[in-house]
């Protein structure tokens, strides 16, 4: 069963994410901010991280950077999910090595399909 970690300061995202993706058969854990998220990433070792950008304490970009710097989490794919649509942000995200940049509002059904496909491709050892 594939594991997903959601890092977002909005609890509604957690609930909807857990309910939807959980229902679809994934094991979902959530985190409210960057520092906690990084710890969970190391412990939980998810197959995918869904990351928000606007968070207190640590911005999503910083989290992405730290995930890529840490040996234990370097290999984990990252999808950024954010309402920021500016060019500069998209470029910055990809520059940090994320795998997809998804703008909110997103369609949960499409997102799930995307995740399914992505994880399938990446499951090949």
């Amino acid at each position: 069963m594939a594991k997903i970690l959601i890092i977002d300061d909005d609890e509604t995202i957690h609930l909807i994410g857990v309910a939807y993706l959980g229902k679809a058969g994934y094991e979902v854990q959530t985190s409210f901010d960057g520092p906690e998220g990084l710890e969970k990433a190391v412990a939980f070792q998810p197959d995918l991280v869904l990351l928000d950008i606007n968070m207190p304490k640590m911005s999503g970009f910083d989290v992405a950077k730290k995930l890529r710097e840490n040996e234990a989490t370097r290999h984990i794919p990252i999808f950024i999910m954010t309402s920021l649509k500016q060019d500069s942000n998209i470029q910055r995200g990809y520059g940090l090595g994320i795998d997809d940049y998804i703008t909110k509002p997103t369609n949960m059904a499409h997102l799930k399909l995307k995740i399914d496909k992505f994880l399938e491709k990446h499951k090949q050892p």
Partner: protein
Amino acid sequence: MKLFLLWLAVHASQYVIFLYFLAVNTTYTALIFLALRDIVRHAYLTTARVARRQLASEHYFKPVTVIVPAHNEAAVITQSVQALLNLHYPEYEVIVVNDGSTDNTLARLKEDFKLVSSIKPVRLQVPHEDIQAVYRSADYANLIVIDKLNGGKADAINAGINVSSYPIFCSIDADSLLEPDALLKSSKLFLEDDELIATGGIIRILNGCTIKDGAVTEIGLPRTTLEALQVLEYTRAFLSGRTGWNALKSLLIISGAFGVFRKDIVVAVNGYRKTVGEDMDLVMRLHRHCRDHKIPYKILFVPDPVCWTQAPFKLGMLLKQRNRWHRGMIDALLANKAMILNPKYGATSLVGISYFIFVEFLGPLIELFGYVSIPILYYFDMLNTRFLVMLILLAVFWGISINIGAVFLDIYNFRRYKKTSDILRLCVMSAMEFFGYRQIMLFERLLATLTFRKKHWGTQDRQVFENKEKTA
């Protein structure tokens, strides 16, 4: 004849004391109500979600220069600067001004941040002592260090202003700990209002809080009574005092520990003046300049952005600090004499400055009169004991209610102190303040008034705030 004059003076002083007591307490009560109204409105209009959305727009911000004057701060400087470099802000620079330190502040900075020489031309817009060298960090592109001859805090900030590249600057103390989003919250006000020229946030006391990685993780009241009393004082002064003054356009102090200003206006008034009370002096001159030139302006205090600072934990240090503050206030008032009781300056003069003159400046003298007249009246058998006792009870109870009102405002809006024991302790402090603390402060302020001539920045022992766990 002399006896008659003495008798007259003592009687008159009774009147004056009574009126003074009424004036002060009424003012503070009024301020609390004004603050309450402000805070309620604030709560309705800035819900968490709206705030988050506003903070979200990375495109909309004005770049800010953070200026940190440092004199013999080798113990804490690296930590402070590191914390500043971790602020949540899209574009800003940090300028540390080494104000002729005699310890190895500059050496520490050079080593910890890999400083290299910078030859960017400096525009001399405001006066200060000579700059000997400007450095920038090889590791952090937005860290600049100025090495200059000693000139005092005001002087150091002026140097920072000259070297800065951005239209807004924030002046803080070397031992202030800004919350990560404090800069964002205060600078966004400049975006939302073109008339705003200066703003200050709330200063909270760090003693008793737990810090991790340069951010406050747990808030608690400090252990000793002395520090806890200061917490109460700050709460009252900031939440009720400053917010209330906002409404009357009479905000006269923006704390040197955390103030954000528009550079162009500060340059127009020729920067900071070399004096002890440079923060109050600058704000008064800003009021004056704008009113003289009929520039529509706003100087606001907002309780949102928070800056943590260390309160003196030894009585000696505290007294020195208060002495300095009082002298600074007197100096600022004297230098801006033209603003006293001048209808040309509207509410700022008639309300704000009058308050400072009659309550903060003359206050200690009047209170002294009060205490002194008691034995004199007793000697002349004119002491109305019943009146005295009633008056004291009234004063104390009224004062306590104001203190608790301030604590309530804090809890209602910010809910920082979550433990019931902390809240109760604050209430106890509200009463304790009147039995000893006030009198000691009074004495110190009197001393300051009488020895006003001496000008000296003074030093403060530092508690190095490493990643320490809360003690006890």
